[in-house]
């Protein structure tokens, strides 16, 4: 391919771009040196900035090289770097100037201008009304002019009403240190370079074709979402992975590298034989490191299992138990309920709405109501149980004792109470999903089965359940993920201090993570818990996925 003709202006701009990228690379590499000479910076921030500046520096060098060779990837690289630089400098300027803290002022002031926006809209309508008089140009012009004047007047009034001028003056006053000037200059320079490379002539000079242009436009459209994902999801994820190898404490900002210590503390278990079932743990375990987790009997011999972090294993066990019970309790009844609601009986829409209601109610509100229901002394559930027992005793002349279930304060029933409440709340949502799945199953299949003499039960087991496989996969997978992330239900319903009572019988992994991260401020350790939880959820989901692909659900 021959080089296209390049005009002098474009040639100059491309040379400028090369120089700009060389300077940018030098600046970024110098920045790395500066970062490592600044003693007050925390380790993770230093590392993060180094990675960013190193990547930016190399990308900038490559951009300069490719532009010099008139290769289009130089333009793409340069545009990406300059776009990101422009965003960083612009947002940085706004941050330094305190604009993001002015949300209250915006909320107070902006509504004053809303009526004037209505005036602008009225002007636009008047202007547009002129289009009806295409055959009368003068009248059309008059409408358009009148509309523009009205829009102009209301535009000015709008600017005055929302106090743009005082805002501008306040903004100028905030330029009282070199930082905002530097950032603004940076934003302008990056902006100029974007313009220089985006131009059609520059694109032609760098051999851009339609596919290249489409790719750049696509990236531009994708950028808000992509940057949001990287900034608010991927970056914290990676940061938490890094923190899991440190003793990070957000209040004191201490962040020393501890390697695998957090993971070892979490997972460290020991097992020791017992000479007698009642032998104290202090005699067999090194209690300076381990606490007794549980006792088991294997081949007629007693063993004691000790854990360095007993609470983590307790939380893991509770979470697994919760998942194993809450998922079937919320999925199987939902399937049956959906089957029932799928019929064309009168009032079904009403019942669909009723069953869905708990899903839209806030967990906190639901938990507070259940707290009262579960109260052992004055709660309605125990009242109902006692009433039924009294009724049965009176009818049959027997003496069944009141079980006096202490739903929330007994270690045997507290987790069960959480399971019942959660299943009750999730059933509605699962029902709607199943219902949607059932309504997608072709009615002809049921008609054919009826003609063949299949019973309703046979239709349900041989048609509905197999054809619902994709929905079932989705429902079960999301229910498992939700169950493994158990938090609010325990935090609010079992309102104990420390959380997860009684006697840690309801503490879940996420609650444990919360306690470590936000009550004790051991964010490094909490991050390790989060990653272990991630591995658990990922493994379970992967297993599900493989089973589904293997045809178990099909």
């Amino acid at each position, binding site marked *: 391919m021959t080089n296209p003709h390049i005009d002098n202006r474009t040639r100059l701009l491309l040379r400028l771009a090369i120089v700009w990228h060389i300077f940018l690379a030098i600046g970024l590499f110098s920045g790395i040196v500066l970062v490592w000479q600044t003693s007050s910076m925390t380790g993770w921030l230093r590392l993060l900035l180094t990675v960013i500046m190193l990547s930016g520096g190399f990308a900038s060098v490559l951009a300069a090289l490719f532009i010099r060779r008139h290769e289009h990837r130089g333009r793409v690289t340069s545009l990406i770097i300059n776009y990101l630089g422009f965003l960083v400098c612009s947002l940085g300027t*706004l941050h330094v*100037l*305190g*604009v993001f803290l*002015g949300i*209250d*002022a*915006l909320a*107070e*002031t*902006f509504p004053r201008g809303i009526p004037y926006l209505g005036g602008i809209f009225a002007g636009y309508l008047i202007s547009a009304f002129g289009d009806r008089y295409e055959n009368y140009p003068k009248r059309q012009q008059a409408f358009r002019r009148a509309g523009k004047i009205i829009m102009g007047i209301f535009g000015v009034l709008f600017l005055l009403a*929302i*106090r*743009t001028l*005082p*805002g*501008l003056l*306040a*903004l100028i006053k905030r330029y009282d240190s070199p930082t905002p000037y530097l950032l603004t200059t940076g934003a302008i320079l990056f902006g100029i370079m974007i313009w220089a490379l985006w131009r059609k002539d520059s694109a032609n000079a760098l051999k851009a074709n339609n596919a290249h242009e489409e790719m750049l436009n696509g990236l531009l459209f994708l950028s808000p979402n992509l940057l949001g994902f990287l900034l608010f999801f991927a970056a914290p994820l990676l940061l938490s992975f890094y923190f899991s190898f440190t003793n990070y*404490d*957000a*209040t*004191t900002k201490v962040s020393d590298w501890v390697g695998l210590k957090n993971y070892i503390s979490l997972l460290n278990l020991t097992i020791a034989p017992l000479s007698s079932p009642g032998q*104290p*743990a202090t005699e067999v375990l090194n*209690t*300076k490191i381990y*606490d*007794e987790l549980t006792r088991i009997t294997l081949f007629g011999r007693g063993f004691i299992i000790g854990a360095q972090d007993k*609470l983590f294993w307790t939380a893991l066990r509770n979470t697994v138990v919760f998942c194993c019970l809450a998922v079937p309790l919320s999925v199987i009844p939902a399937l049956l309920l959906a089957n029932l609601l799928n019929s064309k009986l009168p009032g079904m829409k009403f019942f669909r709405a009723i069953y869905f209601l708990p899903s839209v109610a806030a967990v*906190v509100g639901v938990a*507070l109501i259940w*707290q*009262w229901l579960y*109260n*052992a*002394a*004055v709660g309605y559930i125990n009242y109902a149980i006692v009433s039924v027992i009294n009724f049965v005793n009176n009818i049959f002349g027997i003496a069944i004792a*009141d079980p*006096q279930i*202490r739903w*929330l*304060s*007994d*270690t045997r029933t507290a987790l069960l109470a959480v399971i019942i409440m959660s299943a009750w709340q999730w059933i509605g949502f699962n029902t709607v999903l199943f219902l949607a799945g059932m309504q997608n199953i072709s009615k002809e299949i049921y008609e054919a089965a009826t003609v063949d003499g299949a019973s309703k039960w046979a239709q349900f087991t041989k048609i509905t359940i197999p054809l619902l496989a994709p929905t079932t996969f989705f429902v079960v997978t999301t229910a498992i993920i939700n169950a493994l992330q158990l938090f*609010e239900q325990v*935090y*609010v319903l079992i309102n*104990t*201090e*420390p959380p997860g*009572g*009684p*006697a*840690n019988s309801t503490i879940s992994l996420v609650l444990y993570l919360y*306690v470590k991260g*936000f*009550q*004790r*401020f051991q964010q490094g350790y909490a991050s390790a818990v989060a990653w272990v939880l991630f591995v658990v959820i990922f493994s379970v989901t992967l297993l599900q996925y493989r089973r589904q692909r293997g045809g178990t659900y099909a």
Partner: protein
Amino acid sequence: MLRKSIWTILSLLLVATLFLTACEPKEVAAPVEKPAATEAPAATEAPAPAPAEEITIRWRTRPDNQAEIDVYQKASDTIDAKLEGITLVYEPGGSESSSYQDVLKTEIAAGTAPDVFWIPGTDIADFASRGLILNLNDLAAATEGFSVDSFYPAPMAHLTHNLETGAEGANSGALWGLPRDVSTFVLYLNLDLINEAGAPDPRQLAAEGKWDWEAFKDVATKVRALGPDVYGYGANAWWGPYGVWMNAAGGGFYNADRTACGLDSEGSIAGLAFQRDLYVGDNPVAVPYGEDSEPPFMAGRVAMFQNGRWATPGIRANANFTWDAVELPKGPSGHMGNWLFWGAYVINANTQHPEEAWKLLQELTTAETQGMISELGTNIPSRVSDEAINAFLTFTPPDNNQAFINGLMDMPTAEGPLWAGSWPEFVAVMDPAIASLMTGKTTIDEFKASICAEANKAFK
């Protein structure tokens, strides 16, 4: 093409105006009229210097209900009018779904916590040793007329604990805050139930010096005999209520110098054994351990409900029976074993205005401000003053407010931060172990054999 450009420009203009509007300086509220000077300025006096820029101080405490929020807001407005050049912003903290301390700590980590805030006494050590709160010693030393002796000595001992030397008191070189209020436990009584059971009046027994564990158990047992859903005693499941029984038997959470676990001491075990008997003994008399005892008490099914002064407004508002309060019964040690609950106003270590924050701290703990808040009935002033106590006694019901004061006078154990270890780690071990004990999952011997091996890990 032209229309597209116009729309682009208009859109950019609109975004720009949004930013500019956000830059508009917030209108400062009209200054509250300050009290007039006592002397009129002389006619020849030089013109007053231009007023300095108003400094905004944010402060926060934990209210239990809207009535408390209103009282604290009123106190804030009154102090705001009094302090020249300072604008106060009061932020009530905590709700059903967000723990006061969790939110506060998160804000501290993010650098957005208020200048002045309240924390419970147990948290002082953690906050001070992490450097999250200011040492106010120098500011206090430079303040004329300020004395730590104006407050109850037990909280002040902790609030003046020097992290390096371990010294306590006025000359320790440390002052971490000033106590907001103090409180003790009492037993709120349902007198209707006690009369119905034919049990003696605990107030009378206390007046006669006969109110001890035996008498307490006797009243509780008689009331419990009224029916399966009527209880003699109720308390919520946290360290306060169970600590009382240990303290009253001569034990406690820690050893004498608070450097190791004391939960397996003879006194602690005796106290826990008595308490366990109330819950899972041969004749249990208490609302099952772990159940919230407030609803059954409000429903008129509990004779003696152990709680602090903070429960008074709720009982005033909701109890539909004859009620009063009595001090805790005396245990084998000859004392009630009561706690002196307290919390303190402290200053954020990152505040930009420590001197103004210190002024606010002093104003929040004046007898006048504390009196205003005590009127609500939620707390007892933290200043040692007959005037404050006499005023407190008038805030009835309960008629027997003296029960709170008797608790204060009977050598209560101050709610104590753990300077030699981590209180959250300690309570995380202690609380589940005691829950297991009180619900009958473990025996006293099992508890005694293992508790301190685990709990001692919380010490440095």
